[in-house]
């Protein structure tokens, strides 16, 4: 069955089976391979995208169930002119990524956090990112990046 949804502002469609996951719809159907798959038990968060503004693990959603939805992926996170958005820039500035595999999910989750809670405490950042596993960074610099993206970077750095 052909499924259509709005992905990063554009209507996009691909053929699906009943069992097709949103993650494979995006990756295999639409070629948007920025969304990663790091596990098979809904634990790692590498696959997080936004559906109608809410973060979801796209490996755990059937594509047909979100037909017609507004989906945003890592490919749609940069500014219109192609430059990095505030949160992406903060990840680069604070070395919040190493191998880059968890990064799309981390950025999407962090963006969702800041939309819900624009000035989180460090503990709130750590708690919110509990569903995103990073094996490379030890999270230290990811937390720093999110704090900086929230505009609290300076104080945070001064406090260290």
């Amino acid at each position, binding site marked *: 069955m052909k499924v259509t949804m709005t992905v990063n502002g554009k209507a996009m469609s691909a053929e699906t*089976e009943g*069992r097709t996951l949103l993650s494979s719809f995006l*990756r*295999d159907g639409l*070629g*948007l*391979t*920025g*969304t*990663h*798959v*790091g*596990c*098979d*038990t809904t*634990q*790692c968060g*590498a696959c997080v995208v936004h559906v109608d503004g809410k973060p979801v693990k796209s490996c755990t959603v059937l594509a047909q169930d979100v037909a017609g939805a507004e989906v945003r*992926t*890592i*490919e749609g*996170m*940069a500014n219109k002119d192609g430059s*990095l958005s505030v949160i*992406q820039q903060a*990840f*680069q*500035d604070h*070395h919040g*990524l*190493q*191998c*880059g*595999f*968890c*990064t*799309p999910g981390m*950025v999407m989750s962090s963006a969702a956090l800041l939309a819900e809670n624009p000035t989180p405490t460090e*503990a709130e*950042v*750590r*708690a919110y*990112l*509990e569903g*995103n*596993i*990073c*094996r*490379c*960074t*030890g*999270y*230290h*610099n*990811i*937390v720093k990046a999110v704090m900086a993206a929230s505009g609290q970077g300076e104080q945070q750095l001064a406090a*260290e």
Partner: protein
Amino acid sequence: MPKDGGIGASTKRREDIRFLTGKGRYTADINLRGQAFACFLRSDVAHGRINGIDTSAAAEMPGVLAILTGEDFKEVGGNPTGWLVQSRNGETMKEPKRPVLAHGKVRHVGDAYAMVIAETFEQAQDACDAITADIEELPAIVDMAAAVADASNRVHDEISDNIVFDWGWIEDNRAAVDAAFAAAPHVTTLELVNNRLSPNPMEPRASIGDFDPGTGDYKLYTTSQNPHLSRLLISAFVMGIPENKLTVIAPDVGGGFGSKIYHYGEEAAVLAASKLLNRPVKWVCDRSEAFMTDAHGRDHVTKIELATDMEGNFLALRTETLANVGAYLSNFATCTPTFLHGTLMAGPYKTPHVYVNVKAVFTNTVPVDAYRGAGRPEATYSIERVIDKAARELGLDPWELRAKNFLTTDQFPYTTPVGLVYDTGNYHATLDKLGEMIDRNGFEARVAESRARGKLRGFGLSTWIEACGIAPSNLVGVLGARVGLFDSATVRVNATGNISVLVGAHSHGQGHETVFAQVISDKLGVPASSIEIVHGDTSKIPFGMGTYGSRSLAVCGSAMVKAADKIIAKGKKIAAHMLEASEDDIVFEDGAFSVTGTDKQKTFGEIAFSAYVPHNYPLETLEPGLEETAFYDPSNFTYPAGAYGCEVEVDAETGRVEIVSFTCADDFGNVINPMIVEGQVHGGVAQGIGQALMESVRYNEDGQLLTGSYMDYAMPRADDLPNITVDHSCATPCTHNPLGVKGCGEAGAIGSPPAVVNAVLDALHRGGITHVTHIDMPLTPSRVWAAING
């Protein structure tokens, strides 16, 4: 102030742009026209005899293109071991064949014995389910002691028992060590387990085989830390494909930590299937498969003894270790528990006598091999735990006990009793630095404050050293290595003056594209933005050994420097000709060649242009072009070292441990990009804390893997970890490589586990719980609670 983009600058990473915008290109992201999909059928028993495999029903399923079993790979070679280890009695280690697909027997849960290739992955998966196999279950060999004791039940029928080797290091030291123990005023003994871990890079393995029937060329896209090594193994040992007909491409790789060093059977299988079908064949591992196939790490059971006098001077050290290698010998399974472990048992100390015994044991479990640190975390953990226990037994301060036994700066170069030559270091400096960083004076007050809240606070110390910059080929050759361990780089100056550097190292998170460009920029005076680092494709890069063991900068970086030096030397010749001066009078500085004492000069760009448009050029004596390759074989290992401190709070009611702070004072020699070095330490410490508190691969007695997903294997998450304070200012540059660098990738994972465990024991003892002398990792609440109440 370092120049932006040069050595010493925290240059932001250029690779981040693609990763942050979803434009990374990992193996699973690659789709080739006409590709088919592979799925592997894996054993669900730990040990069994394959009496028959019936693929007839599966072959009729929709979309199925081919089914291969162990029978189809009977004639090809086995996946070899890179290091030959001799037993104490002079016998050579046992080395049973590791086939591409299991044949005759399955030897661990997850051992693949059939492969289906179909039009879609789902069809391949469905067909796998339709294969019926008659596998007669045999008693599983899981416990190492039992595997050693009972030679009648063997993982490999064709060898006489389950012991790979019984290694003594150094056997000639043994008598002196035993004598020192016999005469020692005090002996501290500790039995401990270094828990088995799953490396878990976030990108699962994936491979695409692509055979071109037109040319007979094979291409393999794969998740590898060292594409040339994989190509060599596949060509020379497994498949017999001529090396010049096989290209291995490791594109963006999402972490490795050791687990992607090795060649795995799936890589050979997709190549064979692609040849058979004349189509690309793609396989992507899922996480459950990863847990039961990616090489695990650690898994040692050790008895360590430390002989001292009553003042705490170390007199001798002795260990006995059982090291699990799992069901097959993975590529570096034999050197990890031996030459990367036993040779480090002197630590940063002047212990005069050391002897190490390691028996490697086959079991019906996933193969075990190098995981971040590889042998050196095991050595550090044993040493630092026994020292802490000795301090307690002797009533000595753990800081002072370590400091009094450290090697001193006037002792370098120092030949250890276990065969290494430390070139330089300053262990007192990093220990003192750590002391400054952690507010030692305020500690007692913090303990009291915690106590007021009903919590036990403790501090744990660990000092560590490792041998990295792997490795001097002639030395490792004597020790049994079957490969050279040099690295290589080509510096290609293009006609327009920008530069491509083709390197043997591989980046899977380390930031080589940024850091290597900083090195070349500094060397050649060309802006980093004009320098491109090319890695990961054997058809482009010179033969190099890839990235592991904190070696990239020390070995491949040195090759880059050598190649850049050749560029400068040639540039001087060209400049001398153009400037009509003697070559000896040409100096190269800040990207320009000038005649000393004059204002006559040629820029780097002018020299490059002249090399490619050689109109005014000494063609009689010099070839055109400006491209140089260098191979660098290190003359010694490098020896980074450091001191780590961990402060914890333990809830004695629940056994829960909280890390309050973690502090690292490291000596990495010179540092090219501090931001990246610090990130490496953070990541290593996170893995070390994971090992100490959370992570553990478990099998039940039937050899069933109990920790096969993130539901059961506890990965450290953001809210499990503290901020990590790091310092690398106590630098003693490596004396034998041109950059003076030592390596930083593994440090955190090596130094941190004993600091955490020592901290927990300190907390318990300060809290009056003095009957607990050791708790095996991971220090989960239930283990800590049981120890307290035991």
